[in-house]
């Protein structure tokens, strides 16, 4: 854990250095483009988190072990946090570049629906009552929501199918220094995700211990 924390700390420093000093300033967008690295970092982590929710939900239904449920729940919580950060950083980037905080572009629409889906996941958990119900219903919703995402994206694209303008980074034409800064940032955020996930699961373990002690002592 200490090694992991250390690694995360240093990769974060490296990421901040490479984003703000090492990477060149983008010619058209200027300094505001630097938020792109953190934007990608957060959306990357959110994607990993939601894939983890899907996999651990399936595993929970198959094995019914608390560990998978904790993993699913903790990932979902972090996913919601990071997708919120994605939307915020995206808006900050979009305002000076596109002149608007928000547009109903397919990617943005899908992100927005993704955000709502996992907030609903949280609401379902808090409404479900006892632990077994919580875990099982959440797992069911986690699976259904994930299966829905490709269809949501395709239908969002269909609704906006007329507009030929594709926003966002063009992918191909990115300077090598920028690529390095991006990769360093992605690494840093992945490590951060692992640290946070481990912390979150530890908290759930502690909660379990408290309730089992309470049960033994009859409090």
């Amino acid at each position, binding site marked *: 854990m200490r090694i992991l924390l250390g690694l995360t700390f240093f990769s974060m420093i490296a990421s901040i250095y490479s984003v703000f000093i090492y990477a060149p300033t983008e010619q058209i967008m200027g300094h505001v483009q630097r938020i792109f690295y953190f934007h990608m970092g957060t959306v990357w982590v959110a994607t990993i988190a939601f894939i983890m929710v899907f996999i651990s939900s399936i595993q929970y239904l198959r094995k019914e072990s608390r560990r998978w449920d904790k993993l699913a729940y903790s990932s979902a919580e972090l996913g919601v946090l990071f997708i919120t950060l994605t939307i915020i950083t995206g808006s900050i980037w979009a305002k000076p570049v596109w002149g608007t905080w928000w547009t109903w572009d397919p990617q943005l629409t899908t992100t927005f629906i993704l955000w*709502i*889906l996992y907030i609903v996941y949280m609401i*379902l958990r808090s409404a479900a009552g006892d632990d077994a119900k919580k875990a099982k219903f959440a797992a069911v919703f986690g699976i259904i929501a994930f299966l829905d995402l490709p269809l*949501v994206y395709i239908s969002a694209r269909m609704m906006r199918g007329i507009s030929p303008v594709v926003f966002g980074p063009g992918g191909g034409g990115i300077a090598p220094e920028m690529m390095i800064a991006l990769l360093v940032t992605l690494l840093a955020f992945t490590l951060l995700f692992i640290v946070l996930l481990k912390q979150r699961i530890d908290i759930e373990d502690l909660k379990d211990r408290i309730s089992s002690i309470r049960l033994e002592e009859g409090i």
Partner: protein
Amino acid sequence: MRKIFTILWKDIVTELRTKELLSAMFTFSLIILLIFNFAFSFSSEYLKFATPAILWVTFTFAGILGLGRSFAIEKEGNSILGLLLTPVDRSLLYFGKLISNLVFVFIVELITLALFVLFFNYSIFHAILPLSFVIILGTLGFVSVGTLFSAIAINTKLREVLLPILLFPIIIPVIVSSVKLTASVLEGNSVFSAGSAIHILVSFDIIFIAACAIIFEYVLEES
């Protein structure tokens, strides 16, 4: 097949005795149409763009009312236990419930459609066949997931209140493609002319009927 039919028959007989579900859904769809009438104060050229939206909002809202009751009825008389004790495969229970929900929603949709034509003086008869096709596929989409979620929602503290929150974000692809297809067929085009809408709708139906049939038994274990 007989087993699925038995569940369907049981739900229909219960409904015929009380008629509470259908009358509630029907009245609700009537109210929605009324509100739309006031909200837009229609002129006929306006109606052309608004019709698909009005229809699908009415269908899904009235449908959700019925779906919410679908398992509440089982829960109240504790007859869900009886269902669980019957020696049939759990996915057959899902199909039984799915079909009985479909029957109720289709009846309400049919009446809504007739009232819509009557109230808004808007002819749909030139496209009645493709339109029914679209309505069947769209309804299949939202009722398939709705049946599963109805069983979940009723077992939580929030009960039926939770159902729309769970269901609407998931069925966005269904609503988007159904509205688009409805607009397209009402203009006299075929269902294949609205781009990928028909593919989205059919894929949604197939994916989620299969997924829900598999998952349904895990939900029943917790009820």
